[in-house]
């Protein structure tokens, strides 16, 4: 799943330089500088209010930046420049399909909006419908479709005019696990087929895992940018979680008796240590029965990385700690 980065890095295709946007005294995006490399899938990761959506709206041309600019293939361009807009395909969080139109009609209008016409537009529409596996349902009105199918069609609509960059705002929000996987399978296939570069916002840890690189945002600022594997490796060690009736008291005692850094996160005592396995028997011996109900040990996830980088939880979609036996992915 996690491919190691190519030795010679592809050149940056889209560069954000000092992008800043303020709202009535609050700086939503604060001097954001970021390079999106040709062909990669870069995820903007952060909880609500981190500045992801504002960044998306700036790049989508819906908001004007207060400062900063972007470069596309090295060329400095205004975000409202039609030649930049033409090269971007966009998927909005709330969707932008017309429910009263068929899938084919939605795609055809999408193609025409970007100046494609006649046979060329129709050819692209059929190509996209085939690529997302919905060509036999192209004449159905999309108002009756499920969330997963609509998202796939959004993907086709965003790419019908052959953009260079695909920009997505929380593309899989509200999708179940199956639809999430189908969407990403199609996305990766389209990325390879069409040679696109992808920039998306997310606060799903499972979505962050499948990105090539992640830019972690907090308070409108970039706090880290690396591959998911490298970010997880920064944590080192393991995460031990104790379910206890009195978590605060237990955390204090863990600090005093074992000399470990323990904190209470969402009602559970959390300890980050280098050798988690060795600590489990010491913990069990150090406390009488009943002081904690369960111990779980796991490798750090991106949600943990995020917590460490920003001091805040990634969001409601972050996975809950799972028992040691169930983890085995890395």
């Amino acid at each position, binding site marked *: 799943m996690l491919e190691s980065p190519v030795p010679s890095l592809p050149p940056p295709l889209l560069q954000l330089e000092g992008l800043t946007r303020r709202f009535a005294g609050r700086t939503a995006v604060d001097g954001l500088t970021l390079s999106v490399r040709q062909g990669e899938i870069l995820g903007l990761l952060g909880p609500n209010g981190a500045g992801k959506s504002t960044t998306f709206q700036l790049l*989508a*041309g*819906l*908001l*004007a930046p207060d400062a900063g600019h972007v470069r596309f*293939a090295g060329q400095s361009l205004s975000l*409202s420049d*039609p*030649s930049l*807009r*033409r*090269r*971007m395909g*966009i998927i*909005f969080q*709330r*969707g*932008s*399909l*017309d429910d*009263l*139109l068929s899938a084919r*009609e939605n795609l055809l*209008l*999408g193609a*025409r*909006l*970007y*100046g*494609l*016409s006649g046979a060329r537009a129709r050819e692209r529409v059929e190509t996209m419908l085939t690529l997302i596996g919905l060509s036999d349902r192209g004449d159905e*009105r999309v108002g009756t479709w499920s969330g997963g199918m609509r998202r796939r069609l959004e993907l086709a*609509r965003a790419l019908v005019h*052959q*953009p*260079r960059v695909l920009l997505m705002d929380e593309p899989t929000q509200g999708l179940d696990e199956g639809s999430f996987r189908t969407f990403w399978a199609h996305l990766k296939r389209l990325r390879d087929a069409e*040679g696109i570069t992808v920039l998306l916002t997310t606060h799903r840890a499972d979505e962050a895992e499948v990105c090539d690189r992640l830019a972690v945002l907090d308070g409108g600022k970039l706090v880290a940018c690396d591959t998911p594997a490298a970010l997880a490796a920064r944590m080192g060690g393991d995460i031990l979680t104790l379910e206890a009736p009195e978590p605060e008291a237990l955390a204090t005692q863990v600090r005093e008796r074992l000399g470990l850094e323990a904190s209470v996160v969402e009602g559970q005592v959390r300890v980050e240590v280098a050798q988690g396995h060795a600590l489990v028997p010491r913990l069990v011996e150090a406390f009488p029965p009943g002081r904690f109900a369960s111990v779980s040990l796991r490798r750090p996830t991106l949600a943990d990385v995020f917590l460490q980088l920003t001091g805040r939880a990634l969001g409601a979609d972050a996975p809950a700690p799972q028992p040691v036996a169930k983890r085995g992915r890395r």
Partner: protein
Amino acid sequence: MSAEVSAGQPALEAPAATRPEPGALALQWATVRVLLARDVVRFFRQPSRVVGALAQPILFWFVIGSGFAGSFRVEGAQGLGYQQFFFPGVVTMVVLFSAIFATITVIEDRKEGFLQAVLAGPGSRLAVVLGKALGSSTIALMQASLFLLLAPLAGVRGDTVNLPLLAAVMVLSALALTGMGMSLAWWVRSSAGYHAVMSIVLLPMWVLSGAMFPLKGAGPVMAWVMRLNPMRFSVEGVRRALYGVEASAAVGSAQSGLGLEVPVLLAFAVVFLGLAAFSVSRRE
């Protein structure tokens, strides 16, 4: 740049970069056409809207028309009963409601609908406004034309109707009212707020347009409000096109006979569409 290197031979690596680019004007026109086509298709896919568009003005015309018929007397308006007097007002109302409906959808559509993709696309904001205005005006004109089929019932004689004037007044009214509605919708931002604007601004404007009662009988203050009302020119234009100069002058003001409706409505259309384009093109 790869475009220069690969000039003259098919570029396999980056088809998107070497594809001939559509011209700037072609993209504007594409945006206008997409929005226009979408509005027309949507209209015919909502049967309740088609039926309502026809039934509502007919009901309005008969119910209010017959309710006031007994008490309506205007000196000098020979033969112009209330049903006849009221008919042009209902035509304007059809255009107004159509514009309101079209622009109220803009509020939701821009936050979570098709319009987002258009706004983030390569067309200019002016093209977005024009496309939306043309779409909404086309629907308004279709609805108004259907209602106008009832004109013989309102005592309109086919041989005296001034069709060019009627068409010009309706087209310009539709554009002006859509422009006005869109400017309001863009600033108001919520459907609830727009409903308030509708009942405080738009509906009173229609009532005071000379649609329901003539300018002649109004008090001095009211008469001035009515004189400056953009919608008045729409109602008077339709009335003059349908019933001729004499009958219209009897209930309206002196301007009725002067043919000012078309230039005034044109000015309103330009101003309101310009205002809409200004509002929409300000990237917040």
